[in-house]
């Protein structure tokens, strides 16, 4: 384990960890204090039920934030309620639990409602140096602020509700550095897909990843959230980016961000949150930003990521258990080895999710779509990450661009990222998606998902097949 004795050089992860240890046992197991606990309707009902059964209370309701996102309808008639009975019961359970236990709550009809990982940062709940947990693996998103943020199971949700702590063992430190500058057309999504393509979906297992390097530094907060969001797809429970002026500028003025003298005190602490130059790393991966091309996935694991200029691989290109996995993926995806990725025709485009459902993502997609239309036979759906993102996009007229291009413009929620509500792919339907998982059945039974950036997904919709955004822009601009 990393040496964290006083004075020794420490990583950012070490520093946040040390600041939250309530108690350490001899074997290194720690009781870690949790600053923010985010809650959604799918992974919390059994936890609240557990509290009720044992007569326990929520220890720190003021640090707990609940919002329904996975099951909520994204259609405009949402106020008429949820048709699916089980979905409705789950959302109603959150409603009841949030009110009964007195936690902060953004109900379905609140303009601030949205995907929990978009709402937290937007409202200023997520701040640098915090510990943030949620019963959701994409909690890693909040690491973009230099917060230690990771997903937990429902038993741990109950543990945090009851005690505001978690029993944890420290993970190892992994550094992923992306040097240099990104080429035009290459976005945060391409960077993180390229990283996972390089490290594999288990490359970060047992580690907390800190993303650093010039290419990461130059990203906006939205881009940084896209990177950290997919840390889990690389196997790491948490991803981190050290806070800097970009972070402070984003946080400043948010409803729950500190104000006045407290702001000054906070910023001065936040400025100490970086990895010391001689800190110890258990694993280091370096990518050259210049080398990263627009990247898409071809298979059913996020590690099946390749530059858009590549062709679909053959099972024989792999070794070990991956040979069988690749064969299965190709069959599921209905793809033949050797097909150029740019020849893959699509039926649907999904723009949204906690990976790419923020205002910058919608702007990037709209930019590509301005004055263009979806190809014949392709359907498209845009689902803003929160009600406030939607309002902002409408103010900028982006909704008009999407609608004129033939897209459906929806209300905020997880939607087709996992299709727990009616937003699903039909069997065999192939989708260019800005979400984070291309697992079998993720977006709908037998649905086929190709992950990519918002601009690439929009361009694929116009062309009717996957395209290299660099050429697309050049030819048709």
């Amino acid at each position, binding site marked *: 384990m990393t040496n964290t004795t006083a004075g020794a050089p420490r990583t950012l992860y070490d520093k946040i960890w040390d600041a939250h240890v*309530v108690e350490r046992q001899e074997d290194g197991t720690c009781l870690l204090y949790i600053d923010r606990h985010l809650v959604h309707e799918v992974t919390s009902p059994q936890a609240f039920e557990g509290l009720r059964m044992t007569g326990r209370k929520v220890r720190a309701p003021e640090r707990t934030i609940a919002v329904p996102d996975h099951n909520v309808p994204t259609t405009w008639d949402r106020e008429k309620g949820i048709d699916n009975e089980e979905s409705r019961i789950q959302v109603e359970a959150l409603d009841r639990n949030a009110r009964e236990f007195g936690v902060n709550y953004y109900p379905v009809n609140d303009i601030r409602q949205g995907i929990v990982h978009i709402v937290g940062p937007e409202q200023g709940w997520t701040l640098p140096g915090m510990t943030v947990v949620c019963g959701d693996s994409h909690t890693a998103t909040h690491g973009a602020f230099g917060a230690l943020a990771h997903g937990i199971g429902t038993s741990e949700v109950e543990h945090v509700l009851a005690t505001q702590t978690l029993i944890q063992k420290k993970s190892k430190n992994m550094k992923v550095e992306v040097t240099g500058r990104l080429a035009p057309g290459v976005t945060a999504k391409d960077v993180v897909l390229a990283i996972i393509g390089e490290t594999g979906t288990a490359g970060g*297992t047992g580690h907390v990843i800190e993303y650093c390097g010039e290419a990461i530094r130059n990203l906006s907060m939205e881009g940084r959230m896209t990177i950290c969001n997919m840390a889990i797809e690389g*196997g790491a429970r948490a991803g981190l980016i050290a806070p800097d002026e970009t972070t402070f500028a984003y946080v400043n003025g948010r409803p729950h961000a500190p104000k006045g003298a407290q702001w000054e005190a906070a910023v001065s602490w936040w400025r100490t949150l970086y990895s010391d130059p001689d800190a110890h790393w258990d694993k280091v991966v370096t990518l050259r930003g210049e080398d990263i091309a627009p990247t898409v996935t071809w298979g059913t694991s996020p590690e099946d990521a390749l530059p858009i200029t590549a062709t679909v691989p053959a099972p024989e290109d792999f070794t070990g258990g991956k040979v069988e996995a690749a064969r299965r993926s190709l069959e599921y995806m209905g793809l033949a080895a050797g097909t150029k990725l740019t020849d893959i025709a699509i039926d649907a485009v999904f723009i949204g999710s906690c990976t790419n459902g923020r205002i910058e993502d919608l702007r990037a997609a709209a930019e590509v779509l301005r004055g263009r239309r979806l190809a014949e036979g392709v359907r498209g759906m845009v689902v803003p990450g929160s009600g406030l993102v939607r309002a902002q996009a409408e103010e900028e007229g982006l909704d008009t661009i999407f609608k004129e291009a033939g897209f459906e413009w929806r209300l905020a929620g997880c939607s087709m990222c996992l299709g727990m509500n009616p937003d699903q792919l039909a069997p065999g339907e192939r989708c260019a998606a800005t979400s984070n998982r291309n697992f079998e059945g993720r977006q709908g039974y037998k649905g086929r998902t190709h992950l990519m950036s918002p601009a690439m997904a929009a361009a694929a919709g116009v062309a009717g097949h996957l395209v290299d955004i660099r050429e697309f822009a050049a030819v048709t601009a």
Partner: protein
Amino acid sequence: MDKFTTLTGIAAPMPLVNIDTDMIIPKQFLKTIKRSGLGVNLFDELRYDREGNEIPDFVLNQPAWRDAQILVAGDNFGCGSSREHAPWALLDFGIRCVISTSFADIFFNNCFKNGILPITLPQEAVDALMEDARKGANARMTVDLENQTVSSSDGQEFHFDIDPFRKHCLLNGLDDIGLTMEKAPAIDRFETQMAQARPWI
């Protein structure tokens, strides 16, 4: 939580790598507000066709493995979503132990909270146990948590490592929350200190 001491039972071979939690329990079954009853939908999309008929080829549908209590699985088992419905579904089906070369972190953690023992072993050991599991109902594996060993039906024995605290909790069926609640004074102290050091939180 049920105690876990020793287990002798049938092991089902699932050599596929990267078995994710969407495969273990697809999203349509996450709408429950209970912990129990998920066993019939364990591996649903691998196990049943669209009409709900069993797919005969799938290992848990074959007579030899219908009562499996152990899974021997490919690398990176349990990756993806944090849903604790995955261990709940395994448990409800009757699986108390999963053996693989590696597990995704959150799934690994969730197992311990539900009395399931995830065992990490080197490739050669998992290969040997996979072979043994293929023999089906006549071959029973034994997992001994106290002594930290897995024995195949033909008497090969493999030692595994486990965190001592987790072992203690599993052996005694202890609930973490109760243990932590006893530390309330330490948590109170921490909160007082924090209110001074980082009052904005």
